[in-house]
């Protein structure tokens, strides 16, 4: 359906009733684009949104901005439960960012109109100027090719807003019905959240691009004899309705129910503190990665730009460490991207108009790069030039909506699999004596340097077998040692991807990304009873 709209645009059809009749998205919100009255929010590709965007940029430039960019977002959220409850929310926003003498100014509001965007442009420049007393700071924005009026729609198989909510409710209810076919099993919640954001970006460098981004997530919890598990397969993803229909959810539920039954049979014992060989499942590893390396490789954190908020990093000196600092075993390679199909952090262009690409944060155990934006990439210029690479942003600037200023946020992360055909179960089979853990919740310090994992489902392993469920275990780690203690990485087939939310900044912003990881075996994990006082 998007193709036909593109074609319409190409041939210069005026957007109006005919475009709305295409029905890609209901547009209940009205805006004043200067044609003498209110009209429904047009599709994001509309030429008049482009005009609005550049009007904002020009207003900022006219008010003295050396550089300015603008985002317009039209966001729609829908929540559906198995009981058939349907919640709808919709929001329009516009935000202008202006650079004056090395200071950023930002202004945003919920109104799309010619007057309002011009006001925001001026206001953004005014905000920046308010701080611009004394010598100008140097802000270098890494070069980025100009994007000429391009549009990208995230490739989803089924636009969830095109599916009848009643069909979705039926599907969700069917999942709980399915669970009720198995004696003793219960499913408490089943719900689905859908999100679509249309976004336009323009910069004073002349870039203009528009995107339609989707995010889908679901919740399904299972309970059997007091043991509860959540379905990991429905964490946030850059997908449409196919997040549900495109995978063998019933197989997954059956597998989980089987595990629950197995778990319920195991004796329960309290934790014995000590050091153990520990097998972590993929989601535990994803969580550990996210809170350690994913946190510490944010360049703005490293340099203290988040010091007063979420914190800094256990990597203290980026230029000295890049290319030489060993962060983990040689088998450890961590890449990042914002273009992986289906991932929650995927876009075509970031919120500075930078096209996404894959990059390597840790190569063969050595720190290789950081997460960057246009501004922060220039802080590593020396390293990039020294290694013969272009100074280029990795496209990690994210503004959750146009109301918020872009910040560097975590991209999708991917931990490379190990060479062997190893998965969670076969990893357990290889452990003589140790522990295995599923679904670790990790609490990490403000530098991503040390943490405590808890609340997971923990098994005692003896002779390659799960022999008991351990309650009350805490997994204490130092990031610098943790990744050097990797004994084995799961193989390709064991890699799973999970969508996650992260918060950052002042005021705090919440963004989504995915982390893909295999299960990992650690040699010597310190296991404590976190409720035991000193």
């Amino acid at each position: 359906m998007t193709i036909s709209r593109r074609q319409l645009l190409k041939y210069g059809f005026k957007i109006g009733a005919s475009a709305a009749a295409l029905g890609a998205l209901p547009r209940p919100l009205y805006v004043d684009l200067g044609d003498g009255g209110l009209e429904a929010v047009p599709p994001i590709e509309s030429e008049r949104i482009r005009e609005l965007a550049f009007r904002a940029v020009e207003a900022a430039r006219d008010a003295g901005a050396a550089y300015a960019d603008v985002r317009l977002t039209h966001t729609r959220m829908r929540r559906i439960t198995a009981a058939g409850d349907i919640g709808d929310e919709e929001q329009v926003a516009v935000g202008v960012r202006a650079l004056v003498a090395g200071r950023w100014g930002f202004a945003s509001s919920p109104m799309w109109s010619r007057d309002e965007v011009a006001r925001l442009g001026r206001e953004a420049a005014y905000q920046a100027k308010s701080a611009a007393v004394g010598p100008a700071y140097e802000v270098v924005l890494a070069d980025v090719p100009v994007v000429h009026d391009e549009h990208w729609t995230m490739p989803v198989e089924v636009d969830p807003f095109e599916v009848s909510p009643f069909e979705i409710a039926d599907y969700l209810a069917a999942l709980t019905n399915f669970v009720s076919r198995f004696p003793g099993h219960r499913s408490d919640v089943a719900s689905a959240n859908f999100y679509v954001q249309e976004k336009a970006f323009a910069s004073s460098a002349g870039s203009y691009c528009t995107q339609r981004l989707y995010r889908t997530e679901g919740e399904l919890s299972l309970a059997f004899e007091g043991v509860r598990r959540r379905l990991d397969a429905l964490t946030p993803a850059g997908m449409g309705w196919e997040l549900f229909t495109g995978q063998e959810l019933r197989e997954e539920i059956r597998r989980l129910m089987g595990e629950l039954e197995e778990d319920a049979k195991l004796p329960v014992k309290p934790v014995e503190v000590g050091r153990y060989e520990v097998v972590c499942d993929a989601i535990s590893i994803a969580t550990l990665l996210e809170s350690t390396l994913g946190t510490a490789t944010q360049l703005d954190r490293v340099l203290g730009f988040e010091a007063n908020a979420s914190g800094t990093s256990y990597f203290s000196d980026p230029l000295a460490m890049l290319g030489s600092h060993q962060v983990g075993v040689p088998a450890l390679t961590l890449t990042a991207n914002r273009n992986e199909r289906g991932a929650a952090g995927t876009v075509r262009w970031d919120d500075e108009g930078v096209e996404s690409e894959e990059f390597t944060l840790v190569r063969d155990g050595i720190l290789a790069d950081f997460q960057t934006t246009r501004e922060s990439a220039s802080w590593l210029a020396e390293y990039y030039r020294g290694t013969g690479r272009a100074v280029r942003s990795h496209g990690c600037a994210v503004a959750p909506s146009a109301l918020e200023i872009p910040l560097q946020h975590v991209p999708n992360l991917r931990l490379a699999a190990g060479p062997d055909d190893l998965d969670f179960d076969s990893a357990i089979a290889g452990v003589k004596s140790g522990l295995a853990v599923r679904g670790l919740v990790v609490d990490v310090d403000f530098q991503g340097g040390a943490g405590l994992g808890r609340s997971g489902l923990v098994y005692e392993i003896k002779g390659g077998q799960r022999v008991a469920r351990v309650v009350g275990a805490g997994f204490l780690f130092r990031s610098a040692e943790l990744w050097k203690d990797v004994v084995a990485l799961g193989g390709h087939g064991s890699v799973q991807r999970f969508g996650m939310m992260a918060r950052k900044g002042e005021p705090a912003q919440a963004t989504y990304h995915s982390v893909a990881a295999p299960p990992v075996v650690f040699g010597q994990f310190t296991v404590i009873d976190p409720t035991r006082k000193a």
Partner: protein
Amino acid sequence: MRYRFVLALAVLWAGPAAGQTLFEWPDTAVDVSKYTTIEECWAAVGRVRRRIAEEKEWTDANRGMWRDTMPDLVQGTAVEPLPERVRETARACLSRFADPEAVPIDAYWILVPLYLHAGWDDRAWALVERRMAAVSDDDPEALAAAADTMIDILRGSPKGGHHALAVQPPRYDLVDELLARYADRISDRVLRFRAYSRSLSWATYPPGDSVEAKRERDRATRVLALFDSLADHEIDRLVQQSQSMLTEIEAYRAQFGALMELSYGGREALLDSLRSSTSAYVKLTKQFEKRLPPVLGQLYAEATGGFAIGSRAPAIEADIWIGCEQDPCEPRPRPGRISLVVFASPGECVGVIAGPGEMYLDRCAVMLIRLRRLKQRFPELDITTVSRSLGFWGYLKEGITPEREAELTWRWLNSFGVEAALAMVRTDYWRLPDPDARRIDTESANDRNYTFGKGGRVQSGAAFLIDEDGIVVRVDDLTALIEVEAEFTELIAVLFERKGARAGK
């Protein structure tokens, strides 16, 4: 500021473009024929059924028709055929699962009801047979359990209580066929008795000459014969099993109703006994209660208020009387009058009203509607509502005296068409020591009197039918979703008929 000029703009604005969807949801009609799982069909049927029920309520309400003017208040035993849209949904969705020989057999408890919803009786029966054939005759427990489950499904009370799978109307014809085919294969007679007794539906079909009623009597005959043939040790086992099924009072009640009907000449005999005298009626009731094994007798008594039947109704004590200005308020129940004493406090069914959403009938509705209808049918019936002060009323607490609470309660009941006297007791209570200060209500004299020695509080909704001599004839819960109203109506009619006949002599 935009909010200021939008009003002016609105004049220029001509309305949404054609095709504009305005937060529109796609049509509620979903193409269920593309559904690929049995559970989705189950979900779809459930959704359509729920939706139709809500639509019906909604449209009836907007036609000025309230639930209390509809013929059938009984939700648990609906006997109307399913709406065509539900049947269509089942048919359209099940096209992939239409072969009863090919579907997964463990899904029988989903598919048998769905087939029946679709109107595919043959397929449903084929699946019933396939399911029963899968159970070995050598395992009477398993066979009985399978039969029990199947009977429940066919009579409209599905496994797990899933509303979407409730067969409507109940298919007692198929239950009979099932019993005819399989009951004798259950070698254990206690288990067989259980299966048979499960097949009774006294609560669903009123006595009369309908096909269903005759079938019901046939079944009941068999059940009783079977019961009479049980040896003592078998009855002991039955009792032991019953103890684990104490929650199924409603089911037992139906069975005992049928047993009673047979043992003592049917319900008509019971009504006849009441026609002759309350004591005859009480005697008949007690006789039956005694004839049952102890636990079953107790169950029966619980279900029918046997603890009170035949007792003299104590005088209602009240600190405040309202709504009896034309007659003397006390004593109630009044000698020479047929009375209904109903424990009713809005505070106990509506509770604290903390917002607008709570200001509607909710679960009090059934009681209020029944009281209104009974009063309409029997204008001479003396209804006394018994209330206790709570210290608040809905959202009011300041200045709430028991007098004010009584007045508000009476006006509230009255506004729903319940014309009755109200007896309000100033409630004794004490408070936990400060700072906890929670209020601990104590039993009132009416609670003590009307539990007839059992103790505890009388729940809101409890109704006591009392004859003109002040003897309790029947006790039941007016908020319960069973044929309470019909039974009360019959008994009250007999009482008035009897009174009229006496007066005529």
